[in-house]
């Protein structure tokens, strides 16, 4: 589900609607984490640069 799909849930009580939004944003955050380096990866990269 995407943000664009939320109009169909606008009739829900605030907490139930909020849960739908939370689900979408958490999935977006998970996708963002998958594309960004973890700290461990970042530090490995920095070490390589330093070695040069």
């Amino acid at each position, binding site marked *: 589900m995407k*943000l*664009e*799909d*939320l*109009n169909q849930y*606008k009739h829900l009580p*605030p*907490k139930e*609607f*909020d849960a739908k*939004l*939370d689900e979408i*944003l*958490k999935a977006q*955050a998970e996708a*963002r*984490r998958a594309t*960004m380096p*973890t*700290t461990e990866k970042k530090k490995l990269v920095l070490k390589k640069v330093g070695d040069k």
Partner: protein
Amino acid sequence: MYQSIMPQFKLPPWFGAQMGVPGSDTPLGFRNNPQGLVYYVDASHGDANDNNDGTDPNQPKATIQSAITASNATIDWAATPPYTGMNWIIVSPGEYAENLTPPYYCKVIGLGLATGNTTDICVDIHPVAGSPLAGTGLGAHWFNIHFTCDTAAPVLDFGVMNSCVFENCAITDGNPGLATVGIDTTDANSSWIIGSLFKGNSNPLTIGVRSTGDFYSCRVIGCEICAVTTGIDLAGAALCGNAIAAHNYIWGGGAVLLATGILDSVVGDLLCAGNWITATDAINHADANMTIDNHVINAGVGAIELVGT
């Protein structure tokens, strides 16, 4: 005496700043931009009623949640952006015993003074039990509001907290030692916590600010954070890139000695600059290069460190 030779003009008595927008033609109307709506909440107003549409200050809503629901209903999630002129909710001073679900793409402005201790001079969102605000943060700006939690829960309890601003707010434990965390999030992105006060009643909050997921590109700047266990806790956080904690005063509020001021012991991406901290361990950080000119007293080792930790 200098006398202007320029002719004097008088503005017309009617100013149609929000032509067609309900409430905007009243002389008391608060006008912000041509498209966003302004909702008024004033529980003490004689004509306050949640059945009002809330856009006329002479007929305000009685509860903040009613204004939030009305504002959220204007969002078209299929549009880009989903809002047309960000709405405002203007709240008059008083105690609001509500457990709020957040507004999205909206500014919530408290009148009065959030630093006031009594509800006659500030907006105090203070439910009987549970968090004053809990849910998902998305594009909400909270300004000059006092949040009080009386039971064992976070004061502000967010799952995701994206693009939010807390500015000049007071976040408090109304029942000594019960509220757990000031602002608690499981995943934050691009949110700012600015110039706010985290304090207790006679006993501070357990933790000031905590993220157990991301704290990506977030800011904690210019706050006074009184806590027992940790001031800013990112020990469980994942992505903390571009995050900054700067110019904060972090301590135990005089009642206790804070255990840890800033905790970024795992990721180590939080830039800590110019903070003033007194704690058993002022800064526990995985990357010493990310701490600049913090003024700390580590009570545990009795050291005063002026540069780095």
